């Protein structure tokens, strides 16, 4: 295949991949953020301590995270048809991607929010703030750098899942790799697709790190961050933060485009970090 032949195919496939990743990420953000916060709030000693809610929510998240994506996708076929009216194309792939991304992100949110110092919540309570105030003014803003890192991890995982979805009729780059690269032995095309996926993931990671860095105000968690290791730590300007935390622990794990392990083994486990 010539580059001229590949180009339009790549363009369409990229647009499809970005569409399904975007949709799934948006849903993950809208549903996973509240779910993750709620997991912390309803836990023992939480502001809204509630055993049953915590148990049920935790179970749902665990099931969602432990199902292999391919199984989730097949199991949701009817649901997908019901939501978007088809079981093919990027729109159809978006549904299981979103369903898979929500619990994935929710756990990362939970970990991030749990790391916020309980003393800060107490301070807000002492000022006469409500639970909602504590969430809005303390939990989310203080966890923001970690939340951004979690979102980065989620997007990268979704890119990986989307390739898998593509292989079974979901469109996008995965579909392209399957139909051309695998079925028709177009090795060059396959190489191009792989390179594009790698670049896409690297770009997401770089943007995520950048955003997390911009958000983490100085001094907070001087954990090891690859990007920043070589910077002199003594620079003290009013606006430029130099110490960042990209993930709850260490750098952001990078599941890569080949699809992450189904239970998100690359992701830091919550709670174990005290």
């Amino acid at each position: 295949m010539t580059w001229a032949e590949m180009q339009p195919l790549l363009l369409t496939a990229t647009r499809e991949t970005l569409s399904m990743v975007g949709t799934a990420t948006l849903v993950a953000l809208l549903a996973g953020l509240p779910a993750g916060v709620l997991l912390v709030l309803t836990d023992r000693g939480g502001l809204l301590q509630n055993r049953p809610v915590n148990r049920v929510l935790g179970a749902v998240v665990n099931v969602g995270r432990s199902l292999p994506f391919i199984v989730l996708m097949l199991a949701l076929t009817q649901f997908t048809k019901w939501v978007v009216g088809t079981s093919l194309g990027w729109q159809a792939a978006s549904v299981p991607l979103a369903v898979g991304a929500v619990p994935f992100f929710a756990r990362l949110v939970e970990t991030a929010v749990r790391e916020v110092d309980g003393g800060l919540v107490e301070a807000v309570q002492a000022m006469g703030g409500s639970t909602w105030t504590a969430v809005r003014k303390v939990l989310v803003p203080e966890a923001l750098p970690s939340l951004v890192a979690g979102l980065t991890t989620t997007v990268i995982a979704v890119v990986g899942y989307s390739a898998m979805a593509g292989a079974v009729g979901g469109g996008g780059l995965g579909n392209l790799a399957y139909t051309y690269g695998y079925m028709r032995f177009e090795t060059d095309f396959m190489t191009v697709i792989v390179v594009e996926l790698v670049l896409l993931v690297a770009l997401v990671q770089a943007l995520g790190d950048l955003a997390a860095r911009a958000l983490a105000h100085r001094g907070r968690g001087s954990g090891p961050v690859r990007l920043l290791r070589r910077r002199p730590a003594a620079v003290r300007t009013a606006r430029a933060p130099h110490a960042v935390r990209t993930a709850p622990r260490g750098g952001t794990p990078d599941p890569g485009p080949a699809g992450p392990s189904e239970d998100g083994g690359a992701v830091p486990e919550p709670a174990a970090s005290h």
Partner: protein
Amino acid sequence: MITTADLRKTYRVRGRDVTALDGVDLHVQEGEVYGVVGTSGAGKSTLVRCVNMLERPTSGTVTVDGLELTALAGRGPRAGRGLRAARRSIGMVFQHFNLLSSRTVRDNVELPLEIMGLDRTERRRRAGDLLDLVGLADKAGAYPAQLSGGQKQRVGIARALAGDPKVLLSDEATSALDPETTRSILELLRDLNRRLGLTVLLITHEMDVITSVCDSAALMRGGRITESGRLADLLATPGSELARAVLPLGDLPAGRPDATVLDITFPGETAARPFVSQLARTHHVDLSILGAAVETVGGRQIGRMRIELPGRHDENAVPIGYLREQGLLVDVVTDRTEDAA
């Protein structure tokens, strides 16, 4: 200003009850600095946390500025609207400052004002005033991580004062600071207390904090207040543990038999008088000095001295009488011959 009546708090830890407060009656007058000391685990933190209901007491009442907070219950751990409103007039400073790292100093001070629903310009103005008050106007744009411990605590104090509270609670606010910084923070608290008429309830484990800023003090032990009152009165109370802690004379030495040991407390005016040499001269007593301590409490000097007189208690009635005539507080610590009997 702050009154607790028969305050009890029991925690349930793995099926066992832990009593943190065991009937505490606290009376803090308006405009005073009240210190609570006690060993670790005595229940001091639990007590302050009960005052603004961060911790809900198991029984008993808490009244702050005439409002009974224990009556303003919320459901479970959650605070109802009334309690949240009441908390806005009770400031609190924390040992570990509890500043939001994602906000600048100014924005940290503005947080309680946001909760109170003030508009932006008003918040800016108030925050500016408060930072002036604690001497940090030039740090408004800095982030907490760029401040020293003392500066962080000043921000904590400014934030606590944002709601114009009548009462300030402080749980070990200086425990994470070095002695120098501790002094400056205590001076700030004292100053705010005088200038704003602020009532301060502070928890500490350092006697120095009590002597340098407190008008009144309480000693806690095992969930109870074992001694309390105005500091000057406590120091003049024979056998007071707080007095002993403020003016330590050490353990009683295993002395000779046939000797009487006296602890003499002398208030400011008498500190300068040579009563020891007078006693020796006029009564021909060969006394030995076992220990002495002098402290400045509330701007006045007060001291204690432990002396030993030869002879049993009844043989020393005259010298003891003489000392008491001088306006000194005399506490006969041992009368060894009687002890032996």
